[in-house]
């Protein structure tokens, strides 16, 4: 079980009104705390959005954002490595399809020499197990702590 938990990445999901300055307020809070944002995306709702962020100090980021009055919670996501070359995403997603892993949402970032796909699945434990069975490389949460690097 511990093996599974290691691969759960704590993503911050922040509720945000759809108006200028909201993202800046999140970014400023992170700067003030000297927290590094590793990846983020914005999901657009009707008149509001959800800002999804991966940082190098999630607990501290959460405390600060709550203190600033944000509605924020952790969501467990999975980080899968893919090769940073043409076909890299195809290779990975085809594997996910074969493994029967359904993606709710995903976003990616590049961290030379590899690239990382962050995915949210409905059943996280099950997703982690399936992906590992199919031989893909998952990044564990320690990877997102300060100064870590990708494995290739």
């Amino acid at each position, binding site marked *: 079980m511990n093996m599974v938990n290691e691969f759960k990445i704590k993503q911050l999901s922040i509720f945000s009104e759809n108006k200028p300055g909201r993202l800046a307020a999140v970014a400023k809070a992170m700067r003030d705390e000297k927290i590094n944002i590793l990846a983020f995306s914005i999901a657009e*709702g009707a008149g*509001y959005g959800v800002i999804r962020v991966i940082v190098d100090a999630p607990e501290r980021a959460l405390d600060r954002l709550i203190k600033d*009055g944000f*509605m924020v919670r952790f969501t467990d996501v999975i980080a899968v490595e893919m090769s940073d070359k043409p076909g890299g995403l195809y290779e990975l997603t085809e594997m996910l399809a074969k493994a029967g892993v359904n993606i709710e949402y995903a976003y990616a970032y590049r961290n030379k020499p590899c690239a990382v796909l962050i995915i949210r699945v409905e059943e996280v434990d099950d997703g982690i197990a399936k992906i590992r069975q199919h031989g893909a490389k998952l990044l564990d949460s320690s990877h997102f702590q300060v100064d870590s690097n990708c494995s290739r």
Partner: protein
Amino acid sequence: MLSGYIPEFRTRFRATIMGIIMGLLNERIQMMPRKELDELQLKLLKAQARRLYELSPFYRERMKAKNVTPEDIRTLDDSAKLPFMTKKDLRDFYPDKLFTVPRREIIRYHASSGTTGKPTIVGYTRKDIDMWAESLGRSLTSVGLGEDDVIQVANTYGLFTGGLGFHYAAERIGAAVVPASTGNTERQIQMIQDLGVTAYAATPSYMMYVGEVAEKMGIDLKQSTLKTGLLGAEPWSDKMRDRIQSQYGIRGINCFGASELSGPLFTECSEQTGIHFWKDVALVEIIDPETHEKLGPGESGEMVITMLQKEAFPIIRYRIGDITMLEEDTCSCGRAHPRITRITGRVDDMLIIRGINVFPSQVEHCLNTNPEVGNEFQILVERKGHLDEMLVKVELKPEAFTDNILELNALRERITSKLRNSLNVGAKVELVPPGSLPRYEGKAKRVKDTREI
């Protein structure tokens, strides 16, 4: 003696001639001299007070509490002795506990917005429906409408009284009715053209919208048969009236009514100098909302209405909440029936959105049925183009916040549709973070109305 007789004779002569030429519905009452009207009104007031004292346990109690009996009503000014009725009474006695006829005598029900979840139910006897059609019918003939006219009714048909009210009145005066109801503006315009519609009943803002859509369709309403707009159910201004007249060649006739009173009942006459209230249908008073003191003609205050001939659901000294002024002088049209000037405001926080009455308390009541959102809310009203838009901001509770945007959207949809069902008018809903809406100590200012009328 002679000097008293001649104007009287003139009025009568003029009335008869006008009745014949104009085809006035019930010309005798329309043009009745003041003295006779006052006598008729007093007779009806006495009869209604007596009737209610006998038939309405609710109103008898109220009269007893004020130490007044039907015998105390000897002059029209004695109406001030009678107790008030309020919207709250209508709510407390939901649905039909204020009715004063056996159920089998009711032939129709309508409903209007209540201040909370429950609407106000209005029942009608055959005579009530008849008087309603007669009252508005008279008014329609007072602006020159009649058998040769085609009246398109673009008020909502259904529980709301606007559609059927104009429908029955138009039929009563022998006009042809186009029961278009609301919506599908392009088809509405097509009907105006194809059927030679001469009068159009709607809210003034929708009338403007129809004009605008017609322009986009390349149709010049000035060249059409449409000459009269029967406009009401929401506040509007002389500025809007001028625009409707000059841009579309439509004479804007101001109309008044309310479901509690029956529905649309009265309009201006062709002189367009205030809405005539038929003296045998309603007794209008203007009071100071604080002291409840009766105010004189030309003084602005709260309108109080007594319906003199209603059977099923009597309304006595009803505090309808509108602020206006009374004009008692005989109108240049010759009618001695009093007029009210434009309604300039409300004594309560009621909003009128696209002709529909909306109370912030209704919004609150509806939001409270959603455990996912908090108690704070804000209502923003603006006019976009010619139509009203209402936005309701409500705080999402932290425990209801999810990372799943589909679930959030579904929640918003759910609240939107609940609001639409309970208000009978659409509102946009915005979910905002907890604590982000203003908090109030004392009286909350939850409504921001930026409409320019």
